[in-house]
Structures are given as structure tokens and as C-alpha cells.
């Protein structure tokens, strides 16, 4: 780890000031950044520790009905906030399917959104990686591609965004509130993360020195509470990043789907909102055949990288199954744990 200056601002103004210094990086929970620093993949000249900033640790309902989640709220606290989890069960389920309890106790909302890819070639400093060293090439293409993207990738980069949390947030039209040296702004979470194109090192639409203050879920997102699920498929039952995941949310009236959201995780450099699939479903009857058709639409542009074509079929199955689970209804308690080889209740529908 490189030696760095450490500052602990007491106000947002101080933080923005310190963050504008060349080579400054913002530290929140530290669960991603400190790891990257130990590996030499991040080498900030100054660490600006945001953890003590006031006013960024609340979950509040605004007059508009929107719910505003402060950027410093811990992943575990948000997931176990009973009011929040009841209103946005798929978000709570996604949070609790990510990382480990220890990490969720430290990791923050803002940090989760801004976490870096877990592409093994990004982490291997001996490998060529356009994201780590722009212009150096990408060794993933001819290598191990199990965790690489199948949507929205480029020849320059096939890395995926690893967040679970961002998947249902994007499905529910979350908005990110941002402060920077030049003022405040906000943008849909869906536009925060960039697809790689020719510049995979530019991962988000944030400018230097900007801080995420909060994430806001619109009040309308609450209508999905009775039928919202997050399904994550990974190489082990717990504590692993998604191979493929899906957030699905439905409103069903008189036997027909009147509103629907579908977003995929683990398949692209950003949470992949599947609007084509949503279009297939609005006005339709909620049945397995139509859900499969929607999943086909969601993956219609998918292309494999090396040997990861299995992820395309897997994503279709995960998407249609998540829709089926959402149609069945949100279980009494989330997360309903994923199927486990040790489970005595593998046939329990609430557990997938």
C-alpha cells in the first residue's frame, strides 16, 4: 500500500475541498478501497474519510413519498430496516445476498454503488487490462471468461459490475444525488455506470471530486412491494458474486400485468435494465410462457465472450424464474434464502 495523507472532514464542505486535491480518493466503509490499495490497484495521494460526515446516515421518507437513503447508511442497516424492507423487499433481499455479514456491517450505500469490478484480469497486475492501464489491452478475451459480461461489452473490456444492491435499485428507477465542487446534481442510477466502449477506465458519469450524497427511490416504486424478488445464482450458496442475478417486480390486476420492472446483474458493466422484456409483459397474463418470452427479449442482443455462452441461457432462466417468483408474491420474510444443498426445505417455494 502506498503512503497517503489522511483527512477526516467534519462537514461536506470540508470533504469537497479535500477531495478536490490531486490524487484524492474518498473513503467510506473501506471494504473495497482498502483492498484495492493493498493490491496496488488504487494509490490515492490523500484519503478523505467521509465516515463522520453528518446527515448522510438516515433513511427518510420525503413529502413526495420518495424514500431517501443517505450514502453512509450501512448495507446491513438498510436491509434490516423493517419499514424499508417492507416497502422495497427486492432491495433488502439483494443487499442480504451480497458479501458477508461482516462486510455488510461496514460497507455503505455509496460505496456499494461505486465498487469496482471483480474481473480477475483487473486484479492480476501481470495481465493486460484496459480498465487498470488504459491502452494496455485485455487478456480476458482469450482466458477465463466465466464471470465476464454477455451484454454491452466491447473488445476493450468485458468486465461486469458486481453489485447486487444496484440491480433492484435500477429496476425501481432510483435516482442518485451528487455533490461536487461545482454544485449539486442528480441523475438516474441507470445512467451512472457506463458501458466500456473504448474507455473502460471511465466507469461512471461522476466527475473528479464528486460525492454521492444519497440514493432516492420514487414513491411509485412502493406499488411493487407485494410482488418483488431478487434472485441470485452464484458458484456457492453464500458469499460469492453473482454469475447472473435478476430483480423482478410486478403489479398484477384482474389477472393481467399492469406494470413490471426487470433488471439483470452480473451480465454487463452496469445493472442491465431489460426494457424490451418489460414491453413484452405489460398487458399480458403472468404465466411461465410469457415470462420466458420476456427473458428471450431481454437477452436478444447478448453475445458470449469466449466460453461464457452458458450465461446467456442462465440469464434467461434466472430472469423468467425471478418473474415467476415475483408473480407468486413477496414472501413473509426476506431474504428467503437461496436453495442450499444442506437445506431441509429445498422444495419450499419461498426459498426458490
Amino acid at each position, binding site marked *: *500500500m502506498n*503512503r497517503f*495523507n*489522511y*483527512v*477526516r472532514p467534519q*462537514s*461536506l*464542505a*470540508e*470533504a*469537497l*475541498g*479535500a477531495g*478536490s*486535491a490531486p490524487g484524492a480518493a474518498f*473513503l467510506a466503509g*473501506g*471494504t473495497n478501497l*482498502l*483492498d484495492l490499495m*493493498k493490491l496496488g490497484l488504487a494509490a490515492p495521494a*490523500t484519503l478523505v*474519510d467521509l465516515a463522520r460526515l453528518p446527515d448522510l446516515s438516515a433513511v427518510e421518507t*420525503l413529502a413526495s413519498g420518495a424514500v*431517501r437513503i*443517505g450514502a453512509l447508511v450501512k448495507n446491513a442497516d438498510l436491509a*434490516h430496516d423493517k419499514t424499508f424492507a417492507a416497502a422495497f423487499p427486492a432491495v433488502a433481499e439483494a443487499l442480504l445476498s451480497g*458479501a*458477508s*455479514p*461482516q*462486510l455488510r*456491517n*461496514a460497507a455503505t450505500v455509496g460505496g456499494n454503488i461505486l465498487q469496482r469490478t471483480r474481473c480477475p484480469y483487473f486484479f492480476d497486475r501481470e495481465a493486460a487490462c484496459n480498465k487498470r492501464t488504459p491502452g494496455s489491452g485485455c487478456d480476458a478475451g482469450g482466458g477465463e471468461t466465466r464471470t465476464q459480461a454477455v451484454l454491452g461489452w466491447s473488445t476493450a473490456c468485458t468486465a461486469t459490475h458486481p453489485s447486487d444492491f444496484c440491480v433492484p435499485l435500477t429496476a425501481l428507477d432510483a435516482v442518485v*444525488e451528487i*455533490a461536487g*465542487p*461545482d*454544485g*449539486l*446534481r*442528480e441523475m438516474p442510477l441507470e*445512467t451512472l455506470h*457506463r458501458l466500456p466502449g473504448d474507455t473502460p477506465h*471511465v466507469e*461512471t*458519469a461522476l*466527475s473528479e471530486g464528486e460525492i454521492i*450524497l444519497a440514493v*432516492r427511490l420514487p414513491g411509485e416504486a412502493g406499488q411493487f412491494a407485494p410482488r418483488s424478488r431478487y434472485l441470485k445464482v452464484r458458484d456457492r*450458496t*453464500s458469499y460469492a458474486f453473482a454469475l447472473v442475478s435478476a430483480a423482478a417486480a410486478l403489479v398484477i390486476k384482474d389477472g393481467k400485468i399492469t406494470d413490471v420492472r426487470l433488471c439483470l446483474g452480473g451480465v454487463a458493466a452496469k445493472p442491465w435494465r431489460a426494457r424490451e422484456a418489460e414491453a413484452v409483459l405489460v398487458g399480458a397474463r403472468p404465466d411461465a410462457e410469457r415470462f420466458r418470452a420476456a427473458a428471450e427479449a431481454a437477452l436478444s442482443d447478448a453475445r458470449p465472450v469466449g466460453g461464457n455462452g452458458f450465461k446467456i441461457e442462465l440469464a434467461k432462466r434466472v430472469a423468467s424464474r425471478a418473474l415467476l417468483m415475483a408473480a407468486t408474491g413477496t414472501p413473509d420474510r426476506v431474504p428467503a*434464502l437461496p436453495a*442450499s444443498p*444442506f437445506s*431441509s426445505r429445498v422444495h*419450499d417455494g*419461498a*426459498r426458490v
Partner: protein
Amino acid sequence: MTGAAFSPLSLQLKDGIGDGDRRGRAACRDASHFRREVTTALEFAIDVTVNGEPRRVVLDDPRVTLLDLLRERLHLTGAKKGCDRGQCGACTVIVNGRRINACLALALSQDGADILTIEGVASNDALSPVQAAFLAHDALQCGFCTPGQIMSAIGLLKEGQAGCDPERVREGMSGNLCRCGAYAGITEAVLSVSAPVAPPAEDARP
């Protein structure tokens, strides 16, 4: 840059998203002032409470993690450095009532924190209930991961999310790896402590 363009402050004022934004606007205006005021120190003193005892530690290097602070500066070597990357859980300690990976926390960030390590869980000569349960259920072989497992189990019981459901206990302990494979005993040990205290109706529900 791509994505949404910066909105002028005057436009933001119309949105009225909440109090946080009014504070944010003021902060943005003041940022250039603070840019000059923030300075960095060469030495940092932090005050922490470790296993009930107040400690003042002077650090000459900001890179020290909480794990290195405990092991190398305070000579509390119960918390182990397994992977040093937050993947194995051997460094688990409880900070302000929450279990975390000490390897992924800067010591400097812990100023004012109340820290509990494996060295602080027994009272006098009496093992804590979780320690005793680990012995009773053979929840270890080589013992390297055990301090982290026990601290994690104490954290899990405190969180009250797993109750008497073995699957939720396994999920709740998944941040701690055991290369000897003592998982069955670990699950039994945690269940043996959680069963008598768990509120059955709520927490035992699948």
C-alpha cells in the same frame, strides 16, 4: 464526461429535494474556502476502548489497519491475519457492537470506537457461552479461524437474524472460512447458544 450534465445551482433550488440539499448547496459554496484549510498531520493520536480498557495510540503511519493495530501495536494476537482481504473472516472483531473484518478497516477511522476482541469475551476464568459451545461441539480443529468464528458468532447472536434455523446460521456465518472443515460443529455450537434465547415465533419462521 458523459451522462447528465451539471445543473446550475439556481436550477437545483427549484427541486427542493430536502434539507440535505440545502446543506449541500451551502457546502458547495464553501468548498473553495476549506480547500485551503484542510491540512494533514504526520502523527495521529486515536482514542479507542479495547475490551473495556481506554487506550490512546499514536500512529506515525496512516496505513495501519485495525487488525495491525490490535496485533502489532496492542499485542492482542487473537484476531488472525488470514487473507488480509476481507475474504476469510479470521480477523473478525466487534466494533461498536457490530462484527467487522479488522483487516479492511483503517485504525485511524476507529477513533473513539469501542472494540471487543476474543481476548475480552471471557469474564475472569469463565468462558463465554459461545466459547464453551465451541469446545462442547468440537467446532474447531487447528484453531486458526476460531477467534474470528467466535467473534462472528457473538455478532450473529447479537443481530438476532438467524434464530434456531440452521440454514440461517450457516448463511450468517458464511463470512468465516474454516479450512479444516469444522462447519458442522460450528453450526451446532451457534445453534446451541441461540436456541435457548431466540424468540421462537418470529425467528424460527422459515
